[in-house]
């Protein structure tokens, strides 16, 4: 039992150390931005939620289709393009370069969104 506890504490300490490293390498604006390396966008009711998403460079954004109709996630600048996502299917893209990335659903082009990478 004691051995297991100490292992747990060791792992936790290691985790904190890694997180600390992450914060230091993200740059000056890091404290204002979401810490997790993955952000979620839900697709539902013919809309991306949130429509506008701001993330730190290096973040992976995952879109999940919660609608009962298929949708796609297509960058207007052709930077990324999902296959057709039926209900519950996902698409991920990692944003390494700062900039603005507008996208839309190529099946229902009125559905638009934007990822802003800082």
């Amino acid at each position, binding site marked *: 039992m004691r051995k297991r506890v100490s292992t747990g504490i060791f792992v936790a300490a290691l985790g904190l150390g890694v997180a600390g490293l992450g914060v230091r390498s993200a740059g000056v604006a890091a404290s204002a931005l979401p810490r997790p390396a993955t952000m979620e966008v839900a697709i539902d009711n013919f809309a991306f939620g949130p429509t506008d998403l701001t993330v730190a460079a290096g973040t992976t954004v995952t879109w999940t289709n919660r609608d*009962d109709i*298929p949708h796609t996630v297509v960058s*207007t600048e052709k930077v990324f393009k999902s296959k057709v996502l039926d209900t519950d299917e996902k698409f991920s893209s990692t944003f390494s370069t700062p900039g603005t990335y507008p996208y839309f659903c190529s099946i229902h082009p009125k559905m*638009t969104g934007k990822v802003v990478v800082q």
Partner: protein
Amino acid sequence: MSETNNDEALPGHDHDGVDRRGFLKCMAWAGTGAFYVMQGGVLKSYSLSTRLPLGSTSTAELSFVQISDSHMGFNKQANPYVFCTDTATTEKVNRLATPPEFMLHTGDISHLSRPEEFDTVDQVLKSASAKDVFFVPGEHDVLEDDGKQYLERYGKGAKGAGWYSFDKKGVHFIGLVNVLNLKAGGLGSLGGEQLEWLEDDVKHLKHSTPIVVFAHIPLWTVYPEWGWGTEDSGQALSYLKKFGSVTVLNGHIHQTMQKVEGNVTFHTAASTAFPQPRPGTAESPGPMTVPADQLKSILGITDVTYVRGKHSLAVVDSSLA
């Protein structure tokens, strides 16, 4: 139909919508569609649920049926039995007093552009009395491959992304494609190449030629917030101004709607798969679930009668209930 009250995935339910356990379920469903008769240059449409009086079409020059939005492969709550409603549609076609000469399918044949979905619709349509079916694609038919598969299957003799025209007993039919190269934030789109072809196609036709244009997304602005319109349809319609009788048949919105503008009658057909809400009455234009025993009445169609040259229109709504 208490079975359809299940919220979870239906057991024994294949992707093409066929319930292996209970084919009998199909018997309870009625299909939808619009049956057209050309009589003396005048286009009349009838609900498929209307039994035409015997001999009423004896002077008909031309009769055809429009079906739309079969979405084979859709299996969510709004209609877990798309195969059944599609089958019921062809059965209705076969029971018409005057068999239609051919059918128009205004797109969204499949739900996910999967080969097996197209195959199933082809199988279902084989049992229709009208052997010739003229298609135009919906946005669900051109997923992943910019419509290559659609063209291979249905685009023989067509130009570009699948547009074409043909004549039947003096009526000129034009199939247009407005579901490709869609721009972010935009509506349906015909594109320059297709518009040029259209202008040329109708250039030498006599003004008295009845014209029927069919395309998936409405060629009039039904509700732009939901993408229900076509960016450059105005230009297409300008080439048809000279004709005394123009009928535009569309699908996409899964409900019947019509409008008259000068010499042009616009008509959208119901889907044979599932209904969608009236413009602005819901958060989004997605599949609308109704109680199972009401689905038939929602899948009903609208009878449209118009008189060429007189710009008058009689509209009669009739459901399949």
